[in-house]
């Protein structure tokens, strides 16, 4: 039997449970937050910001990402323009090592502490592992920045290789709640993703694991994703908002509303009070400048600076100026060790 929870009840409960006692919201409570009205949004965001400040502090972690291998992916993630199964304009291309190092240097110059190398693959083959090994070594020799990676599903041997390379953090998103995942991807399972996440956690690398919202999922399925991420306890959760890509199965979906996106940010913060919650793709389209500010004052404490993998981000100078205006210092590299 489901108990009817009012907006006032859930906000009061969240204040006492999450802010005062540090206990994350559970599935039913996350759902109740997602169902709150626009009239309560300001109060919800303020509470999520208080939680972020109490358990994470004012610092913001800044990261740059780059695509080492773009396009031609055999998987069919319905949101992704890099799948080789759709008629997307994105063509396959590899980044060379000197350009990879240059990108890392320019990312570090913004004050970023993390640089993530991404490849559009199901999982890495030996060629990709070798390219990554060479690239990570070149970056570590030239740039003072943590190197992260996101190269798909892994075997235990590959996890061990990444640890040996010095990969600081590994990204592998759940993408969607388990019940909605088959509507998003059919070429692999949610459980395969979960298994890779568990291997990464056990290896000592930090786990970065999040997902996308606005893909046609119900609020129940959105709450399910947050609850499953909370169960996984990753070090970081990147939160993406669907940016409908031409030629993909989700290409005709409307971007989610800014208020829904902000409610989602607050709900994820209340489900994950001690986790880094990062703005990832789609925020420019979904939230714009004003919404970006509201999210940083509503639970977000990390950003991706500059461009994404196949689309463009805000001018990083605007993001850095906004952080300064909000008195949110960039987390220094030595604080992330």
């Amino acid at each position, binding site marked *: 039997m489901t108990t009817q929870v009012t907006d006032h009840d859930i906000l009061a409960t969240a204040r006492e449970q999450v802010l005062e006692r540090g206990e994350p919201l559970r599935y039913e409570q996350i759902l109740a937050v997602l169902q709150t009205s626009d009239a309560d949004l300001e109060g919800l965001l303020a509470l999520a910001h208080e939680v972020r400040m109490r358990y994470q502090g004012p610092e913001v972690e800044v990261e740059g990402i*780059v695509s080492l291998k773009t396009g031609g992916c055999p998987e069919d993630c319905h949101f992704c323009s890099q799948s080789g199964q759709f008629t997307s304009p994105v*063509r396959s291309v590899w980044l060379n090592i000197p350009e990879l190092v240059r990108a890392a240097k*320019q990312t570090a110059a913004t004050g970023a502490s993390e640089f993530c190398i991404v490849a559009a693959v199901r999982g890495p083959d030996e060629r990709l592992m070798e390219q990554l090994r060479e690239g990570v070594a070149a970056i570590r020799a030239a740039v003072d920045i943590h190197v992260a990676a996101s190269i798909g599903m892994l075997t235990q041997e590959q996890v061990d290789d990444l640890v040996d390379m010095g990969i600081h953090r590994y990204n592998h998103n759940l993408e969607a709640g388990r019940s909605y995942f088959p509507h998003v991807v059919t070429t692999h399972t949610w459980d395969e993703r979960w298994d890779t996440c568990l291997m990464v956690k056990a290896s000592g690398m930090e786990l970065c694991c999040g997902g996308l919202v606005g893909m046609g999922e119900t609020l129940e399925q959105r709450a399910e994703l947050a609850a499953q991420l909370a169960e996984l306890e990753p070090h970081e959760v990147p939160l993406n908002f669907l940016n409908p890509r031409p030629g993909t199965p989700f290409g005709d979906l409307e971007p989610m509303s800014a208020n829904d996106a902000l409610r989602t940010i607050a709900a994820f913060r209340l489900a994950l009070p001690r986790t880094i919650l990062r703005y990832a793709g789609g925020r420019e389209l979904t939230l714009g400048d004003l919404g970006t500010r509201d999210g940083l004052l509503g639970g977000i404490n990390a950003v991706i600076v500059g*461009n994404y993998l196949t689309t*463009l981000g805000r001018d990083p100078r605007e993001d850095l100026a906004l952080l300064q205006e909000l008195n949110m210092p960039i987390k220094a590299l030595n604080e992330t060790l």
Partner: protein
Amino acid sequence: MDLSAVSLDTAPGAPGAWCGHCGGPTSEGQHDSCVRMRELEPQRYCTQCRRRMKVQVVPQGWTATCIAHGSVEHSTWT
């Protein structure tokens, strides 16, 4: 082909017969939305020949290359 010898008039980003965003003919239909979309996306099609280009996005910019007409680069910050 020596791409450095490509004329600016026929560069893949120069005004041409094809839209750099959707690949449609610039002489047909409106491309105002394409222009808006380009604020958040790199060029995907060569404006001279409509070929899909190889595009590499990096944090600080992007490069798009047409096999026939060379490359166009855009820097977000330096």
